[in-house]
């Protein structure tokens, strides 16, 4: 029973953490129509920033400022946001599929920096010993994780409520107007490029926050933590949940992360140890299948778009 | 007189939930040049595209030479004797003149297509002279001729022209109308959409006036020239389009 409970807590922490990134992506794609294929890169920026700001000092590696946890989270959001502004200024005027290719390239480049810039990132060894605030507050992994879960739930709720208010504000309506018809939106006196950049930046800083929460929980960040497959997973979460809807974003994160961890668990029980190396491949095949099948059979996802948004979403 | 085309009760649009045409009916007979006029947004181009198979018809029927062809894919209609010349982008600018004609003959057997291309080159020496050049070098009037020649390659019985004189000089427009009159000499039928209402009515046999996706007036073209109501339907359009 304790085992199940502790596993459930562990699962929810990670699913909600990814859910925050999915909400960020939802703001970009579901509401503004920006195709960000570099999610992994922004998670990495957030994760490393958090590790640098809050982690212990180490020889020959930058950072280790041992700042409070909350500073790490905010710093991660700022850093991801700054990178997003730079990236956005260069790429946001591109057509959809070029934006996808360019942002994909950014994630690859950030990954290269993570591997190679040892002074900043610890290279392939990564940065270890990132403090988890729950360790100070309680004893025993179950309680500690429960506290961390409460923290993640709080952050998720904050992000959810904040985003709901934002997308229903006048600014949020401009987002949808831009997604539907950029020319018409600009004729209303809105500057679409600026609003797109704002939405992109806000979405990316949520991804940075997600990366920071992940690293804060795991206590470690390495170059293999934010591989391109994370981008695919986050996208699958958004599509499965239904883009254009923040509840769908969280639901999608739960479902897809459930399938991922559940299948990983099942495979580890069934498959012989010498085949374990390939079990990750089987999990990835499953994610690919879910994405493709959802698009074919339930293109609007589990929860469709909020009705306040016009019908254009599915034929984008 | 042979009826070439009957479109009845056409409901169509680019999105199923937003029809532009609300039950339009037109017909064209062999040997006839029929023109559709109407103010901007009347659905003239949508009608011609619906007949050509490019816009989905959600209600109504399209009959060609007495056969129901509603919903037939565009490329099969081309083989069934329907030719369509769009208003803009009506030639392949990245292809040579000859390649444009080869594409025009896609519905024919290869030998037949090549023979027809030779005939077209005899008929239009200007095209023959520039056969190996890219169509982008042609002038506006020359492009219209190539576009019509491409459409004629299959020896169509119904020729759909969307604003053939748009952007042409008055002289080039007059020459083009002469060419259009010649098309129906051997029993083909022309259905033409024109913004240049007066000039088009002068050279047409019959005409329909569309407004807001519905039939308004139809009749013999020369009668419509005298009809005062047309001015009112066009209200808001530029005066030179009406006068």
């Amino acid at each position, binding site marked *: 029973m304790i085992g199940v409970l502790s596993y459930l807590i562990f699962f929810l922490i990670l699913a909600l953490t990814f859910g925050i990134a999915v909400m960020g992506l939802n703001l970009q794609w579901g509401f503004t129509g920006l195709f960000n294929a570099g999610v992994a890169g922004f998670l990495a920026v957030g994760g490393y920033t958090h590790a640098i700001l809050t982690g212990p000092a180490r020889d020959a590696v930058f950072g280790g400022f041992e700042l409070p946890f909350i500073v790490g989270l905010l710093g991660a959001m700022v850093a991801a946001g700054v990178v997003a502004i730079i990236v956005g200024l260069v790429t946001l005027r591109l057509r959809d*599929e070029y934006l996808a290719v360019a942002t994909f390239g950014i994630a690859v*480049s950030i990954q290269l920096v993570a591997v190679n810039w040892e002074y900043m990132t610890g290279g392939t060894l990564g940065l270890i010993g990132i403090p988890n605030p729950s360790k100070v507050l309680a004893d025993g992994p179950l309680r500690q994780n429960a506290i961390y879960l409460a923290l993640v739930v709080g952050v998720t709720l904050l992000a959810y409520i904040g985003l709901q208010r934002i997308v229903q504000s006048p600014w949020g309506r401009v987002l949808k107007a831009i997604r539907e018809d950029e020319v018409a939106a600009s004729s209303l006196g809105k500057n679409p490029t600026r609003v797109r950049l704002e939405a992109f930046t806000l979405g990316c800083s949520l991804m940075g926050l997600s990366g920071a929460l992940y690293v804060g929980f795991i206590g470690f960040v390495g170059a293999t933590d934010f591989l391109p497959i994370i981008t695919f997973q986050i996208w699958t979460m958004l*599509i499965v949940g239904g883009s254009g809807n923040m509840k769908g974003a969280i639901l999608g994160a739960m479902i897809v992360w459930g399938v991922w961890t559940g299948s990983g668990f099942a495979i580890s029980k069934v498959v012989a140890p010498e085949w374990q190396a390939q079990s990750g*491949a*089987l999990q990835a095949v499953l994610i690919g299948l879910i994405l493709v099948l959802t*698009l074919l059979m339930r293109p609007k996802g589990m929860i469709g778009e909020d009705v306040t948004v016009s019908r254009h979403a*599915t034929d984008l | 007189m042979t009826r070439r085309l009957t479109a009845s009760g056409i409901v169509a649009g680019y999105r199923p939930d937003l029809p532009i045409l609300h039950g339009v009916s037109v017909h064209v007979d062999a040997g006839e040049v029929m023109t559709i006029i109407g103010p901007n947004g009347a659905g003239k181009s949508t009608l011609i595209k619906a007949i050509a198979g490019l816009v989905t018809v959600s209600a109504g029927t399209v009959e060609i030479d007495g056969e129901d062809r509603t919903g037939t894919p565009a490329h099969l209609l081309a083989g069934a004797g329907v030719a369509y010349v769009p208003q803009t982008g009506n030639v392949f600018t990245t*292809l040579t003149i000859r390649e444009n004609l080869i594409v025009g003959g896609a519905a024919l057997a290869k030998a037949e297509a090549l023979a027809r291309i030779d005939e077209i080159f005899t008929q239009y020496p200007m095209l023959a002279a520039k056969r190996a050049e890219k169509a982008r070098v042609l002038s506006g009037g020359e492009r219209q001729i190539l576009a019509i020649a491409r459409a004629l390659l299959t020896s169509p019985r119904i020729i759909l022209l969307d604003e053939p004189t748009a952007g042409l000089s008055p002289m080039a427009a007059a020459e083009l109308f002469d060419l259009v009159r010649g098309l129906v000499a051997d029993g083909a039928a022309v259905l033409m959409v024109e913004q240049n209402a007066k000039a088009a009515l002068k050279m047409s046999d019959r005409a329909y006036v569309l407004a807001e996706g519905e039939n308004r007036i139809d009749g013999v073209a020369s009668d419509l020239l005298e009809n005062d109501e047309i001015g009112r339907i066009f209200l808001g359009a530029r005066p030179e389009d009406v006068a």
Partner: protein
Amino acid sequence: MILQHTADGILSGAIIGLGAIGLSFTMKILRFANFSHSELLTWGAYFGLIFISVATAMGGFGGTFGPLSFGWPLILALVFAAVATSLLALLLHHLIFERLAKVTGHMTMVFASFGVALLLRNAVLLIFGADPIYYSNTLQFAVKLPGNVRVLPDQVFLLGLTIVVVIALHLFLTRSRTGIAMRATAESPDLARVSGVNVNNVVRWVWVIGASGAAVAGVLYGLTVQLRPELGFALILPLFAAAILGGAGSLYGAVLGGLIVGLSENLSVMIIPTTYKPAVPFLLILAILYFRPQGLFGEKS
């Protein structure tokens, strides 16, 4: 040194160019960025491996050609890989992309290509394992060219085959009715349709040509480098860079774009650390999209 880097750049550029032809055509005619295209290179390479393994098990077909590391089996493997990869691409088109194209927009196709890429890549990993594989263990002696440039005979073959493929495609696109119809569809699908072109057929041809080019590129990569399940994945950015540099839909653009990417990657190591080489195609993409979004040879739309 610079000459050696140039030679290496041309050779890897030829592979990228061959692989990028299909991607470029897909972007132009099917109108979506296909992130799963690079996986067709992987599948082509492994289809080639299957053929060669079977041929070897059956006793092979005689020895190798002169200084090359291979004989008839590899030539036949190229054909087999092209056919098998084309069938795979047609299957994906039929099961997934064609259905989505009917009901949704081009960005849904991009998501789907994400999913397909994951499926294809990990299926290779499942079937063949993660270890690198070689077609042949024959050792080759490098040929020394003037300027102290060393190339392997297989690499010379690679370059020759690339030129043959490009010429063949050029003839197809300018002489055959299908090829001309394909160019027409690339420019204006609706005008092609009303001219009597069956655009569905054209789309199938695009998949066949793209998959065949990818398969040949994959086998050549396997021949001159090695086979790995991530072979194609690592080429996503170089392929996109080549296709975007050349301009979507341009045959020579894709090939030249491939050469530019290959040369830039290989020459870049003279000024930046080798470890950052994979970022070079990305920088090229940004540069071309900033200064000339239609590509070097693309038509302005």
